[in-house]
């Protein structure tokens, strides 16, 4: 059956529910059309376009310095990584090497962003499954990370810290001290997270064996990030195509074999520990030097096509720029992780209950503005 099948009821007793675009658990303006038989889901069909802002088209009239910042509004929870992907593509086009200090700062900030993003995900997973309390615990730690971001980048959510050639400003003098404190705090609280949610009988019953995505399906749907790694697909861009000096740090790619919601949950829980380990390796070893390579005021990329991918908190973000030699891109295309991840939802949710759909959506960790752009 085709993914976008006809809008007809195939069996007696089926009925259609429109979940969204205004719905508490779609985390934004996602619209899912559900074919139901009682509580059982027969078919899911995602409808997009409610938050389309034509970021790609808009970028064609922005300079290479400015178009980066539009991407903060795509996957706003990994804004720093989105910016980094664009900055890396422009640097690739210019053929410049960025200083080591800038690279390390980028990794540190990326991992902090990943931690903050996973924490928000953990909180909202609890919320989606009906446990309100985890949300507040997650936000306690996320708030501390936001504090570091505010101090160094000047912004909390859409940091806009990357520029072609490095980062916009040097780190705040208190950056290292505060980051170490926050890492200590998070490390001591991660066990609390497990106590509150991971080991809970109801939570396990709600997630184990729910929304199974096989390895083959994960690959053929182009699913990336923690969602794919929960199905045992090794796809961490940081390992397979290192950028920004990720080849120099020690970390493990987290893989789980289950493919169900619980496996995806565990991947993210374990990834938080890996991120902390990466930050702890680098926080005392930030090299001296410039935080930015020298670039011209007006950047012009040579004629050609440039592509760079990074691992955001949700999966693989690809940036594809076509340049005709002018001061702004001829064409920009983003390969966003959430778009591919969302379209694995219909096969995962089929045959489940409405409660399962909510569990699947929360472990897919969807950010809707990234799907529509």
């Amino acid at each position, binding site marked *: 059956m085709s993914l976008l099948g006809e809008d007809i009821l195939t069996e007696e007793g089926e009925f259609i529910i429109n979940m969204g675009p205004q719905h508490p658990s779609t985390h934004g303006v996602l619209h899912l059309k559900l074919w139901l038989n009682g509580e059982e889901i027969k078919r899911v069909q995602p409808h997009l376009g409610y938050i389309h802002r034509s970021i790609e088209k808009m970028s064609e009239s922005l300079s290479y310095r400015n178009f980066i910042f539009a991407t903060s509004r795509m996957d706003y929870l990994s804004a720093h990584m989105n910016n980094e992907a664009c900055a890396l593509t422009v640097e690739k086009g210019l053929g410049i090497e960025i200083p080591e200090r800038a690279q390390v700062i980028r990794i540190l900030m990326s991992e902090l962003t990943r931690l903050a993003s996973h924490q928000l995900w953990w909180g909202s997973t609890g919320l989606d499954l009906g446990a309100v309390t985890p949300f507040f615990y997650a936000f306690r730690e996320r708030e501390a990370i936001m504090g570091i971001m505010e101090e160094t980048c000047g912004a909390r959510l859409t940091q806009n810290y990357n520029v072609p050639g490095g980062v916009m400003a040097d780190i705040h003098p208190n950056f290292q001290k505060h980051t170490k404190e926050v890492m200590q705090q998070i490390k001591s609280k991660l066990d609390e997270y497990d106590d509150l949610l991971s080991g809970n009988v109801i939570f396990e019953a709600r997630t184990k064996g729910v929304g199974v995505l096989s390895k083959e399906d994960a690959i053929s749907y182009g699913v990336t990030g923690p969602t794919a790694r929960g199905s045992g697909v090794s796809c961490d861009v940081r390992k397979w195509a290192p950028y920004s000096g990720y080849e120099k740090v020690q970390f493990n790619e987290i893989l789980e074999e289950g493919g169900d919601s619980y496996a995806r949950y565990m991947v993210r829980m374990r990834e938080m520990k890996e991120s902390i380990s990466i930050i702890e390796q680098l926080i005392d070893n930030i090299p001296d030097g410039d935080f930015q390579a020298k670039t011209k005021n007006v950047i012009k990329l040579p004629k050609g096509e440039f592509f760079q991918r990074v691992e955001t908190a949700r999966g693989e973000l690809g940036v594809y720029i076509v340049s005709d030699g002018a001061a702004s891109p001829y064409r920009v295309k983003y390969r966003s992780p959430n778009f591919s991840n969302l379209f694995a939802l219909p096969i995962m949710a089929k045959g489940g209950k409405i409660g399962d759909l*909510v569990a699947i959506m929360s472990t897919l960790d969807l950010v809707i503005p990234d799907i529509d752009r």
Partner: protein
Amino acid sequence: MLTVNVILGVSLIAFLVVLCFFLGYMERKVAAFMQVRLGPNRVGPKGSLQIVADTIKLLFKEGLTPDSSDRFLFNIAPFIVVVTSMLVVAPIAFAKDFQLYDIHIGVLYVSSISSMGVIGILVAGWSSNNKYSLMGAMRSGAQIVSYELSVGLSLISIVVLTGSLNLNEIVLSQQNGWWLFKGHIPVMIAFVIFIIASTAELNRAPFDLAEAEQELTAGFHTEYSGMKFAMFLLSEYINLFVVSAIAATIFLGGWMPFHLGTWEAFNHVMDYIPSVLWFFGKTFFIIFIIMWFRWTFPRLRIDQLLNLEWKYLLPISMINLILVTVMAIMNWHF
């Protein structure tokens, strides 16, 4: 006599409304306490008037009736729910020699009236003409019909031990010790089952499938607003109080003070504490436990919810009832 009854009735309703204000405040504070935050702290001393402010807001909101709804049923549903939950309060003994309606089949009355609230919920879900509401109502129906059995069976186990359906006599039978303590393990099992099953009957988390916000937006009361919505909230808190009061009466001795066998001096000291304090102390203890569930557990799925009842709680409570009966016949309790 009629005037006295009317005054009593009106004052009971007023008392219940004030109590619900307090329960709403308590729930917010308990939730805040468990969620590392402060809770309401602006309106009135320590935020205690927040609920009053919220009620005033709800009073002034428009009570919308959707065009496509069944207007009569839609408007009457909140009242069915509130009236049934208020009726259950009648036979409860709040303090020594203070009972509004000393009916000799109290336990039967309580369990039959409390299961009538589901009619209001079903009517609300059906008449809203909204798919989410209907699903919430159907869930609620399936849930309450199932869990009613376990609630009834665990209440019957105490009826078997006491030999009376009268709530007052059940309280008096606990003069020498509460049933929870002198009933051995079977009564403890019955108590635990009662707490679980009645949490489910209350439609509260982790069994709040009827209004599962993340799945059904607001379940059966999606279309309700203003005071009609407040009625559902009111009935939820009255039910919470009623269930806890029943648990306190049946298992924890109601207004009966805590007595320890032959410790005369200790028992005397306990007797000095007014019986009304004993009753409300026990009730609020159980209310706190039920709130604790709500703020720590995730929600069950509908099939898991029904499995829990039909595969685990019901068989256990049936076997438990047999055990209690054997215990009562052989006189094995204190």
